[in-house]
């Protein structure tokens, strides 16, 4: 008698859920594994594109596609919000009333913005003088605002980590400098970058490079600022240490947390709604048959598409091993890389992992894209990436030379330990 196929249920049809579903569909026959994906809507946003929307460099409809169209044949798609996961009964209840059971669960529901967690953020000035570009509504509204913004104080404020794509707020500052220069009003605008970190970025060598870029572009840097409140009437950020930063236009990155249903699922997530996860195998620490991919995991890596991509290769191998009853041997090393748009058609590239901070050199080999250095080729790389995202990354195609492990061969290793300790670079003061 033929055995029933095992059931893999994937929560989230974004970067991680989609690439994992497609890769696993290729590995198993339908008679071996049934794969279903759940998401609350059918809008798959190419999130790196949101950065470009406020500057008119991307239109909203260019960066959104249907989620179910990105999934290969033979993958079920359920469009409904998730109510909760019962990790003991191995079931997921959906708001449309369906209850789905699983043998293996993959949580890939990412992170959500929580503007309501900061006093005054979604107050009377929200979408008037206080914006975020981290979602489509905010990015589009900000495009209209920037169109007519010609003088005053532009303040960019990261409330606290973790956030998606930790370099995006810096890129926003660089692009704002370019945009206002092109408009001929840069002299009438002060740009201030306000961060809770003790530098421009989390990692020492990159932080120094990025701080000097801010300086070159005349962008003020305020560090160790912990925003307690956005004062709508007074148009200022107020810190817990009572420092105040006035603004005419505030671009804020709200606090992030896990998806709302995580809190309604006893034993699944931590206080912030992220899932405790093994840093290397991507197996959750809450149940052996639950795996986690991308922003939803509490691993100490950036919440970024590249991380999800590299984690995905490891995850797929380990889910295969788990289903076959073998030991999980694939290991994720924390590999991340990001293009950092710096304006005027240039970009930097950084490449790092759990142990090694971003270093200068070239990627992936000694002949390759320049690391930690502004160049036009990196800017082109960033622009071309969207096409690769839809046609390569999501369908689960490998790119020759770009593996999940971080390459060391093109990097300037002399800088490791030159007054910096990479291991402590993942730590943050508060």
């Amino acid at each position: 008698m033929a055995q029933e196929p095992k059931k893999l249920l994937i929560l989230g049809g974004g970067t991680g859920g989609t690439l994992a579903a497609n890769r696993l569909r290729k590995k198993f026959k339908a008679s071996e594994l049934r794969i279903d994906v759940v998401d609350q809507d059918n809008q798959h946003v190419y999130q790196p594109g949101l950065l470009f929307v406020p500057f008119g460099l991307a239109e909203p409809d260019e960066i959104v596609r249907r989620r179910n169209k990105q999934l290969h044949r033979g993958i079920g798609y359920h469009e409904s919000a998730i109510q909760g996961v019962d990790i003991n009964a191995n079931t997921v209840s959906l708001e449309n009333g369906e209850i789905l059971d699983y043998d293996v669960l993959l949580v890939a529901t990412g992170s959500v913005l929580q503007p309501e967690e900061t006093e005054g953020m979604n107050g009377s000035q929200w979408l008037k003088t206080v914006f975020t570009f981290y979602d489509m509504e905010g990015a589009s509204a900000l495009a209209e605002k920037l169109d007519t913004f010609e003088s005053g104080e532009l303040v960019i404020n990261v409330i606290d980590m973790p956030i998606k794509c930790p370099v995006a707020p810096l890129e926003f500052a660089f692009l704002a400098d370019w945009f206002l220069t092109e408009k001929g009003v840069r002299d009438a605008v002060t740009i201030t970058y306000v961060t809770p970190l003790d530098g421009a970025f989390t990692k020492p060598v990159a932080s120094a490079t990025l701080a000097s870029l801010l300086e070159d572009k005349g962008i003020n840097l305020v560090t160790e600022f912990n925003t307690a409140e956005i004062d709508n009437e007074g148009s200022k950020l107020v810190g817990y240490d009572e420092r105040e930063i006035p603004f005419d236009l505030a671009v804020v990155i709200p606090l992030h947390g896990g998806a709302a249903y995580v809190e309604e699922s006893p034993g699944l997530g931590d206080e912030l709604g992220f899932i405790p996860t093994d840093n290397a195998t991507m197996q959750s620490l809450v149940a052996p048959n639950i795996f986690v991919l991308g922003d939803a995991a509490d691993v100490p890596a950036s919440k970024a598409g590249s991380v999800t991509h590299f984690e995905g290769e490891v995850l797929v191998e380990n889910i295969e091993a788990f289903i076959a009853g073998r030991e999980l041997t694939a290991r994720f090393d924390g590999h991340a890389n990001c293009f950092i748009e710096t304006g005027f058609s240039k970009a930097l590239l950084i490449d790092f992992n759990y142990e090694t901070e971003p270093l200068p050199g070239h990627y992936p080999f000694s002949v390759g894209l320049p690391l930690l250095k502004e160049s036009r080729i990196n800017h082109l790389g960033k622009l071309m990436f969207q096409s690769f995202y839809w046609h390569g990354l999501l369908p689960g195609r490998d790119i020759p030379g770009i593996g999940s492990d971080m390459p060391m061969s093109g990097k300037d290793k002399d800088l490791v330990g030159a007054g910096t300790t990479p291991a402590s670079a993942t730590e943050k003061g508060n």
Partner: protein
Amino acid sequence: MTTKLLAGTPVEVNEEGFFVDPDVWTEDMATELAAEANIAVPLTDKHWQVLHYMRKEYFEKGTGPTVRKLGKSSGVTVKELYQLFPKGPAKLAALCAGIPKPRGCV
């Protein structure tokens, strides 16, 4: 790595002053460390609530909580945390609680 005399006992600390071995910590050491950081001593019950919570979390999870996690689960609000341990509550509370610097985010 250096050795620091706290409450009459030599304690090994790292370059930022965090304990290498959380097990050697005592409440008297916490009071000395807090005073060094310009926190008024004797410490209040709320201070102790946070310090003991930090240690409990560290021993259970291997890392001290961040400010946001403290605000959600220690019973002390984020605003109060900044009053109790000014500037960087999680970092300063970890220092006084004798545990490593909380693992932050990248």
